[in-house]
């Protein structure tokens, strides 16, 4: 589904990613771990199509198609979703209206009519229930005055509504208490299928107790320096990132 080949990317002429290789197939859950500043968020941002990031070398293929020429919205229409570490606040636009706009924008891009109102409402109710979201929450302005946990839950709600093929969760566990973490992880798990894939980007192993990865990759200094199964995450938790740094030294 997602193939990253020898990807080099820079922002403001500073090279952050220095040759990433990654293969994600349908039905898989990948975790990308690494110390701060290793390039984890850059990788997710580049895959999602931020214009400020320059791909210097290599490429990203999604379902066999090179993403290089596609804007962020076109990538979203193809089925790539990024859950943000710091979601943006939009006063005056309710959660409901925002998600309607997003869904209908994707449908329009695919040549479909707007989703009928009753169908939309049914889906919103269903997904809100999945994430234990109160209906009052849906009529609040997007992310405005939301707690850290509410913002993350709202990101996963959008994920549930948009039903992407590939979901990239960037530090979704940060700012979540254990109850919120369980709800969010439970939501992600219920949305998983043999046709979609999840990439979890995290600093800590904690989230991976709830969203169990098939593969774990360690990103360090712009490269994936180690890959393994979920046991690798436990090893990292026990030994810390210095272990990787020493091994590489």
């Amino acid at each position, binding site marked *: 589904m997602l193939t990253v080949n020898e990807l080099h990317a820079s922002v403001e002429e500073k090279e952050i990613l220095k040759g990433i290789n990654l293969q994600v197939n349908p039905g898989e859950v990948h975790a990308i771990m690494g110390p701060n500043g290793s390039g984890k968020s850059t990788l997710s941002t580049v895959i*999602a*199509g*931020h*214009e*400020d990031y320059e791909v210097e070398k290599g490429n990203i293929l999604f379902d066999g198609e090179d993403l290089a020429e596609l*804007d*962020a*919205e076109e*990538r*979203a*229409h193809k089925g*790539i*979703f*990024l859950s*943000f570490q710091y*979601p*943006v606040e*939009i*006063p*005056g*636009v*309710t959660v409901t*209206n*925002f998600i*309607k*706009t*997003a*869904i209908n*924008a*994707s449908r329009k*891009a695919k040549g479909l009519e707007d989703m009928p109102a009753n169908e939309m409402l049914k889906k919103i109710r269903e997904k809100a229930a999945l994430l234990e979201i109160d209906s009052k929450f849906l009529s609040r*302005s997007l992310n405005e005055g939301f707690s850290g946990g509410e913002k993350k839950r709202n990101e996963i709600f*959008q994920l549930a509504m*948009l039903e992407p093929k590939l979901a990239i969760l960037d530090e979704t566990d940060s700012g979540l208490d254990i109850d919120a973490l369980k709800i969010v992880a439970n939501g992600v798990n219920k949305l998983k299928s043999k046709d979609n894939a999840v990439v979890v980007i995290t600093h800590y192993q904690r989230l991976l107790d709830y969203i169990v990865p098939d593969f774990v990759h360690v990103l360090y200094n712009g490269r994936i320096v180690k890959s393994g199964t979920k046991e690798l995450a436990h090893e990292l938790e026990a030994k810390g990132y210095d272990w990787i740094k020493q091994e590489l030294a």
Partner: protein
Amino acid sequence: MELKEKMLSSFMVLEQDLDLSSPVHDIRSESLKTFEDKGFPTNKLEAWKYTSLAKLLKNNYSLFPKKETTLELKDVKKYFLYEIDSYKVVFIDGVYSPFLSDTTHDGIDVCLLSAALSKPKYKKIIDKYFNQVADKEENLTALNTSFAKEGAYIYIPKSVVAEKPIQIIHFSTGEQGDFMLQPRSLVVAEENAQVQIIERHQSLAEHAVWTNAVTEIFADKNAIIDYYKIQNDRHDASLVDNTYIAQQGNSNVKVHTFSFGGKITRNNLNFYQKGEHIDSTMKGITIIEDQQHVDHYTLVNHEQPNCESHQDYKGIYSDKAVGVFNGKIYVDQIAQKTNAFQQNNNILLDDKATINTKPQLEIFADDVKCSHGCTIGQLDEDALFYLRTRGIPKKEAKGLLTYAFANNVLESVAIPALKTRINKLIAMKLGVEIGHDL
């Protein structure tokens, strides 16, 4: 002939229809003298540094309607807030339209200034209020005072709450050729009275129209006045709107100005606080494009202690549009415990769009809270990226962000149908579809 000369020489034509023995005529004559001395304001005046009327002065305006024109309601219905019941005072090319209006004398007076100026039963009110708060030395206000024949007269007696909003609409049809209008309105809310007013100037066809309006508003003790100005005119219509507000103790006056259209729009909005515990609010949303020009020139005169003023103006400018905000806050030395807030935030969507923003604080009391802030920015790139990753195309995403930026000014709009209407207008201006079911 220059416009100034034309105005001066046309005064005699105007006088043919007037009662020359009325004290109002003396006011007119004095004002004409002031205008003769001062002429039209030029960029040399500090107050007009960023707004030039030179382009407007070149047109050969008719000053009086040459013929009577009528309008069908169905053709102009969309300019009314027709979703709700309201009183209406409607003018076509400066002449009262009984057909489109819905006035009253039942408990309150919603009628014509011409009637109020000429009929004895209004004399007491006219003597007390007419041309009392308007700045007699201001060029264009003086011009309006000398030439104005018509406008709305609204009188809300003590402890009366007007049960429905009042709409004042001035249409310019183009039937008179290029046209200059001098509407004049007077609003008086006595002690404990309440009223909501919506005002609009609307040109209906291609022609140069210049409206030089003066509105005087008096809020007596505890009165509450909500005034809404909808400025969404054609690109060949210009407006200089002079509004003067005098407030007595514990009164609350809010003026919302929605500037979405027009060629050159200048809003002179002046608040004078004459008692204690007064609340004065000025809010504005400006969204303009092409070569449109909107200038907000506000004054809050804190003359008494323990009062508040709140200003919040948002501007969104595209293409070569020009915005001006000049907010003057004057705090007299006796006006202790004044709370004055002023905020002006702007977004420039194009490289050639301009905003000139200038807070002007003159504070002579030592125990006051005054804050002001202005920002000029582009849209937040991270926010834009966020929306695009949700599949919302760049153009719509920009629209949505600008919409969100402007939107919070609407929170204080007290007429739900108006709020919805303005919401839709903003969404339409910005090419956003989301506003429609909010």
